[in-house]
């Protein structure tokens, strides 16, 4: 059976990932936020094992301005998919067709999926599908991806189009001076385009737009380039617009005519009108940021002060009860004390201490998922643009930073959507200062132990401290390492929508599942190693006092480094080192090394920390090197081992300096 590969292409936030999930039956994360898809994903179409669909990043054109556009164009030109499924947002049809026009020029079998038809109908709008298909020269299928309407018809039409090798019926939408220029250039470069395997019409329009990568790939001679420039000059003089504007004008003129003949517009959607009203408040010049801070404070209060901590305490009591049952059973059986210690003081204390924080993480992401799905987070990026520009970044950097509150690894990866290398590197350096979810157990444990009445405030303070550090570093970088201006930030603000229960529950489940997997893999392995090193000495004799163990020996070598910060105990320095494998390991290591049960760990910490040293410890944990997975992501994105080591050293040194400053300043009062 011949394999069919479809490319799923469309604008940002037009429902591509929702359609991808419907086509493949997968559960990729969908956000009401432009730019959720960073790189291409592929999946087999349900019920058609021979057909694969590749979800490409959302783009507005095939000009190589942004990394998303480059990824999509490279895939379409180099990989040559058998067919294209072009998803079009019916409620924004004119702007979406701008990409459609360019896709048609690729001369690849294509179908157009007209999405959000339900929303369009609600607004009283109609589309003459048959006429639209006829004028575009490709099959158009009306769908509603979120309601699974029209998906079967779309799949069938797409497969039929490929099997019958039906190419787009039309590619020539222009007239006048632009038409003459395209045809002149098209004939001139025909041989080059054929050699490259690119339709000459597509290559010609790109050359007229001034697309340098295309010019290089075609390998044009100096004479040919000069002839093209001459055509461009003639076209610009005749049309009275510059080259890019002339091409855009040509496309939009056709789209305007097409829509006037095929689309009956309805009233402005209720959703849009409602969004405008809400935006007047939420994106207000002065109130925007205070409202955002207020919402986040409420989220933290509910997560760490009310619901989340209650659920965590409940789970913690359950784990403690289970630990007691296992401990009693093992003792009654007469198990060897070392094996008893391995199970109870090692595995149960270590893994259990981390696992008990799972409800907090799930509750936190329940709220963040709602904020994202409603479309509010897109507004926050908009509100933050002004602030981020002051530190030399554009609002677009907000997306990686926001993801950084979940995990630094995908956050660092998502920085590749930034087209400017300067912005990308700066974002990679600053993103780890956003407190990832792995640090939540550390913050929550210390906040409960030392500031029981101000837990939410402490949590909020730590998050803000990370943001503040990023701002200060950004200001320093702006004037030193990364001089220059950030790229302009243009983002489409989606309408506010009610989040779907499925999407919210899916994210909560993903969070819970990953947390459990992590607890039983990396935390479990780290716990067993820590237990072994603290139970035996160098001659592999069981020690009665942990301070004679192998771990104490290693820990005491590092401990002096942390003494000026107020926590010079070898147990604490060891916990910080294991935190490099995964931040949650700091808590599991402390649980194993202090040899206490989960419910008494908070009280036990009092023997090793005062409230001042606890703050210093939290500041250090907040800022020091991200975990090994994040460092690997930095290395991948920067493409340099030395630079990634540099990032680790920079952040650890900064953490030490900040913790030292905080410790000594608070001591003065």
């Amino acid at each position, binding site marked *: 059976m011949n394999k069919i590969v479809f490319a799923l292409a469309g604008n940002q936030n037009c429902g591509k990932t929702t359609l991808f999930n419907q086509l493949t039956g997968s559960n*990729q*994360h969908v956000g009401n936020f432009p730019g*959720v*898809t*960073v*790189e291409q*994903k*592929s*999946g087999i179409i349900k019920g058609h094992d021979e057909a694969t669909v590749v979800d490409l990043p959302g783009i507005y054109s095939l000009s190589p301005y942004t990394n998303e556009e480059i990824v999509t164009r490279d895939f379409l030109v180099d990989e040559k998919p058998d067919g294209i499924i072009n998803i079009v947002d019916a409620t924004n049809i004119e702007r979406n067709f701008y990409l459609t026009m360019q896709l048609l020029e690729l001369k690849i079998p294509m179908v157009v999926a007209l999405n959000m038809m339900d929303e369009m109908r609600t607004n009283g709008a109609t589309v003459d599908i048959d006429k639209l298909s006829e004028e575009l020269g490709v099959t158009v299928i009306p769908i509603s991806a979120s309601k699974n309407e029209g998906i079967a018809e779309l799949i069938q039409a797409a497969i039929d189009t490929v099997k019958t090798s039906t190419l787009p019926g039309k590619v020539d939408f222009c007239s006048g001076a632009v038409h003459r220029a395209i045809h002149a250039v098209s004939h001139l470069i025909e041989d080059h385009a054929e050699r490259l395997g690119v339709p000459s019409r597509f290559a010609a329009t790109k050359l007229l737009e001034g697309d340098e990568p295309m010019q290089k790939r075609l390998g044009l001679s100096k004479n040919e380039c000069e002839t093209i420039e001459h055509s461009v000059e003639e076209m610009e003089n005749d049309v009275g617009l510059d080259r890019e504007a002339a091409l855009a004008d040509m496309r939009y003129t056709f789209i305007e005519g097409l829509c006037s003949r095929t689309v009956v517009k309805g009233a402005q959607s209720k959703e849009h009108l409602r969004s405008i009203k809400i935006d007047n408040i939420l994106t207000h010049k002065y109130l925007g940021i205070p409202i955002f801070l207020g919402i986040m404070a409420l989220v933290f209060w509910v997560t760490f002060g009310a619901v989340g901590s209650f659920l965590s305490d409940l789970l913690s009591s359950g784990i403690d009860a289970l630990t007691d049952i296992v401990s009693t059973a093992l003792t009654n*059986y*007469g*198990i*060897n004390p070392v*094996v008893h210690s*391995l*199970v109870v003081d090692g*595995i149960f204390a270590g893994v259990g201490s981390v696992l008990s924080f799972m409800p907090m*993480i799930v509750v936190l992401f329940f709220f963040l998922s709602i904020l994202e799905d409603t479309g509010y987070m897109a507004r926050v990026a908009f509100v933050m643009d002004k602030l981020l520009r002051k530190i030399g970044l554009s609002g677009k950097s907000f997306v990686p930073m926001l*993801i950084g509150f*979940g*995990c*630094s*690894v*995908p956050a660092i*990866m*998502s920085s590749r959507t930034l087209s400017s290398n300067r912005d990308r590197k700066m974002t990679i350096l600053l993103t780890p200062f956003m407190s*990832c*979810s*792995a640090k939540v157990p550390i913050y929550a444990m210390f906040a409960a132990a030392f500031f029981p009445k101000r837990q939410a405030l402490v949590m909020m303070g730590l998050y803000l401290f990370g943001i503040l550090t990023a701002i200060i570093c950004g200001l320093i970088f702006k004037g030193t390492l990364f001089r220059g201006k950030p790229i302009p930030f243009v983002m489409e603000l989606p309408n506010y929508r009610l989040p779907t229960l499925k999407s919210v529950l899916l*994210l909560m489940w*993903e*969070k819970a*599942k*990953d*947390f459990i*997997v*992590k607890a*039983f*893999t*990396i935390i*479990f*392995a780290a716990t*067993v190693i820590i237990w072994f090193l603290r139970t035996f000495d160098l001659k592999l004799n069981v020690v009665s006092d942990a301070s004679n163990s192998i771990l104490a020996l290693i820990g005491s070598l590092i401990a002096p480094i942390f003494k000026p910060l107020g926590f010079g105990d070898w147990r604490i320095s060891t916990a910080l080192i294991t935190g490099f494998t*995964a931040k949650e390991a700091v808590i599991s290591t402390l649980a194993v090394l202090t040899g206490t049960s989960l419910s008494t760990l908070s009280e036990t910490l009092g023997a090793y920390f005062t409230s001042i040293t606890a703050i210093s410890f939290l500041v250090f944990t907040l800022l020091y090197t991200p*975990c*090994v*997975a*994040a460092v*690997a*992501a930095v290395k991948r994105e920067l493409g340099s081992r030395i630079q990634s080591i540099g990032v680790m050293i920079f952040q650890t040194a900064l953490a030490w300096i900040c913790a030292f400053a905080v410790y000594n300043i608070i001591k003065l009062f």
Partner: protein
Amino acid sequence: MGPLDYIIIAAVIAAFVAAVVYMRRHKGCSCSSGCNGCCESCAHKCDNKDMK
């Protein structure tokens, strides 16, 4: 040391090895993120076809 001692030690060693093997196969996704980017990175790195 009774038979249960040996069983427990063997089980812990087996679980430890399994955890290490799992971590090596999923180098890019030990981050509890559960999001697209991370799973995708994992799928590419460890050639886990289920995740692709």
